């Protein structure tokens, strides 16, 4: 298993558990190697990394999960704006990528992060222009059908 996959798994679990008190389990059956293009349905947070690690980290949330996460952090609000949801998704993606960045820096792959971007669509197609790493993970929220996926399309400058 690639180090990036391990780091992303740890980071996603920690962010969900610490910020939203939501426990998630990694789907071990899900293929680690993604085959772009990837088609997502829901809301996608992304942060770009540049430096010794170059690429983009994506977090793909189902619409239902976004509501759950927002309600857990900000309190129940059936009329919550999509802007507030975007803010939460962006911040989660930033935390996961920040965590990955720190771990990669310890291995000598220093990089810088962009400000998060959030995409909405049905479907959204994510493809990679140039990169030798296409890694994916899938998690399910314990006791529900809610799913979160992660994608890392990147190139390591070794």
């Amino acid at each position, binding site marked *: 298993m690639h180090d990036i996959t391990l780091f992303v798994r740890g980071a996603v679990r920690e962010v969900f558990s610490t910020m939203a008190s939501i426990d998630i389990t990694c789907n071990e059956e899900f293929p680690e190697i993604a085959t772009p293009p990837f088609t997502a349905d829901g809301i996608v947070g992304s942060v770009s990394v540049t430096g010794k690690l170059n690429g983009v980290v994506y977090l793909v949330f189902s619409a239902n999960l976004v509501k759950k996460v927002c309600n857990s952090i900000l309190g129940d609000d059936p009329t919550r704006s999509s802007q507030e949801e975007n803010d939460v998704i962006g911040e989660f993606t930033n*935390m996961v990528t920040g965590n990955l960045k720190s771990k990669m820096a*310890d291995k000598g792959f220093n990089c810088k992060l962009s*400000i998060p971007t959030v995409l909405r669509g049905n479907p959204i197609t994510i493809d990679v222009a140039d990169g030798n790493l296409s890694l994916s993970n899938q998690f399910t929220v314990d006791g529900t059908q809610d799913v979160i996926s992660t994608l890392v399309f990147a190139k390591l400058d070794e």
Partner: protein
Amino acid sequence: MTPKILSVDDSKMIHMVIGKAFKPYDVQLFYATNGVEGLAVATRENPNLIILDVTMPVMDGVETLTKLKSDPLLKDIPVIMLTAEAGRENVVKIARIGVRDYMIKPFKEEALIEKAGRIVDLQAKGSGSGKAKSITDPATILVVDDKQAIIQQVQDAIAEYPWTVIGTAQCGEAIDISARENPDAVLVSLSLPDRAAFNFFQMIRANPKTKSIPVFGMCIKTALEEQAQAQSIGFTGIITKPIDPGDLNFRLTKAMSLDTSAKYFKMDGAALMISRIPNSISDIIANEINSHIKPKTQEMVESGVAKMIIDMTELTKIEMGTIKLMLTIMQNCVDLSIKYRVAGSPEFIAQAKTFAETKDLIIYASREAAKEGF
């Protein structure tokens, strides 16, 4: 006194998490979404603590921190840095600029409260009086220095306030005094033998009763190593010798979160406010007066006071900064339908005629003259 806490983060979610974390405590929270806004709010509100995100648009946290630390008005405000990047390089970089503490995202609310509680006095809501302490209230300043002349200099510098100075040359005795008297601020010489000031500081911070007391290190300007060490372990600030009385007063009042408005705004009877502008205003003083204008004029209107005399009789020299300040007070009076008159010294009256902004202004020769028939 209610601590003011400023959260600078581009994420509304983080603001809400911070709001929720501090909800049980008696604090005033302010929010800014980037460094530029954060610096503006910090200048206006003089918070006791800033929680600063690293990655933000417009101006990021590192640039904001650098600007905070290079501004004499803001450099003593403790900062907790929030970052999603726990890497050593990143942490060392922000520690070098001078943060009190840092938190790695994701974080638990309890962890934030624990770190903030080491810096500001967090009281559960409803447990305190909530009344802001004023510059006219008594306070105790503990000065730890083996040079009696320095203790005397501090005493002279704060003589205009009802503050008591307790001086001692021994850190051991200072620890006992701190625990017994709970002083409002401590000044300790960094050049005491055997790094005594640093050990003293750590003991003060380790005691729950004294952990929130502002502690300033004192040293000569060129003792850069001692200054850096003191800043890195979290001293409230550095006072350089020879002591500048204006700077010392300003920094002590800020560190103690004292309401300084009584220096510049005073009621004369039940229906008249006097706004006094002192002679030779530094940027620090101008900024301090500026921060009081809006709240004081609003307070006047709310309590039914509708007249003000802007007293410039102490001024011997008129400068653009003074005019700007006077015009700001006048504009606030106009906005809130407060009637005002200006009194000035003969020098002020003569010089005011040479400025376009003030040449047509009616200026009374004294405060008493301005009061007549007003």
